[in-house]
């Protein structure tokens, strides 16, 4: 088995386990994916190195929010590559960096070609963006993130139902993606 297909098999299994409800597998999936994304973006944003970490987070958020478009009968590599490339092109378009758009197209295997665990600091602080969210979305996200609480604990702390906490986190992360991308 080549290295790429070994990565594909491992990450795909972690994502599918995560989508079946295994939080630890999902955490590992996102963690490993972020390293591949970082290496991928770093090689392609040589002129915008400060944007790499923002784009990694933005792409992770997109992967998370749209993960239900991944179906068990499809390979992971083209899915992850298509999202990474979409977010990359989106960023370049926003930056109106015409030159960078002319970089040659690469093939989808490039997305898992290298892995980079050394995160630079993101320029944009997602936590600050959270302040713009309505209370019932911000509170569950803050409790679960900052305090590291479970859904049950966060629900008790916030005085909300468990499903309201889940809906709040879900909607909040969707709204966050919109704020970051400036999508209409």
């Amino acid at each position: 088995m080549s290295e790429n297909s070994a990565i594909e098999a491992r990450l795909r299994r972690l994502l599918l386990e995560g989508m079946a409800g295994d939080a630890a597998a999902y955490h590992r999936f996102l963690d490993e994916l972020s390293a591949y994304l970082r290496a991928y973006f770093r090689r392609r944003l040589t002129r915008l190195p400060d944007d790499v970490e923002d784009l990694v987070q933005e792409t992770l958020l997109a992967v998370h929010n749209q993960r239900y478009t991944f179906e068990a009968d499809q390979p992971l590599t083209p899915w992850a590559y298509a999202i990474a490339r979409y977010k990359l092109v989106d960023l370049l378009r926003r930056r109106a960096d015409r030159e960078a758009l002319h970089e040659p197209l690469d093939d989808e295997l490039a997305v898992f070609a290298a892995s980079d665990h050394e995160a630079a600091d993101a320029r944009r602080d997602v936590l600050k963006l959270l302040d713009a969210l309505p209370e019932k979305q911000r509170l569950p996200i803050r409790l679960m993130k900052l305090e590291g609480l479970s859904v049950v604990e966060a629900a008790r702390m916030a005085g909300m139902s468990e499903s309201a906490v889940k809906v709040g986190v879900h909607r909040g992360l969707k709204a966050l993606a919109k704020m970051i991308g400036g999508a209409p």
Partner: protein
Amino acid sequence: MKTDEFVSLLAAGGGAVESGTTARRHALAIGWGGMGAMLLMAIFLGVRADIADAVRLPMFWLKLAFPVCLAGAAFVAATRLARPGARLGQTPLALVAPIAVVWAMAAYALATAAPDARGALLLGQTWTVCPGLIALLSLPVLVGTLWAMKGLAPTQPILAGAAAGLLAGAVATAVYALHCPEMAAPFLATWYLAGMLIPTVAGALLGPRLLRW
């Protein structure tokens, strides 16, 4: 926020995910949109008066099969274009096949008709209103299919919008066929197709604006 903290945040917001969302959203769009088109047709146009006789003619079913086959192929195209990295595969072929069949039937009908009857086969009685009415009926379906697409993850917004538009147009045409009295293949090959292409082009134009995520 550091990326590893961000990953923890996302993982905490995880949980089990239902599968089959893509097909479900599109099916919902067609269900509600198709019902809207059916209501518009029934209220403002009316089902053709001779429907009881028409259902006995093979041409009536062929006329219905044309948009239904296109809707099926457009459904597959739309659900694939809604998912990152999904390949279209043989779908373009399935889109072209119904059009090729109807065009072949139209060519045969025109070739075997008397020269002075050809104009009537092509234009029928209603060619001036047919594409416009199909486009109008497609509006509720188009709202639905674009909504379905918007909640998914299309990475090629022009194509995704076009597929959503064609799906809406084909569903609307199947509904319109219950009203429309035309039965000649040259008419269907021209004006039904033109009617379906209006929402297709509209979808392609709207895609890049509406389908960002």
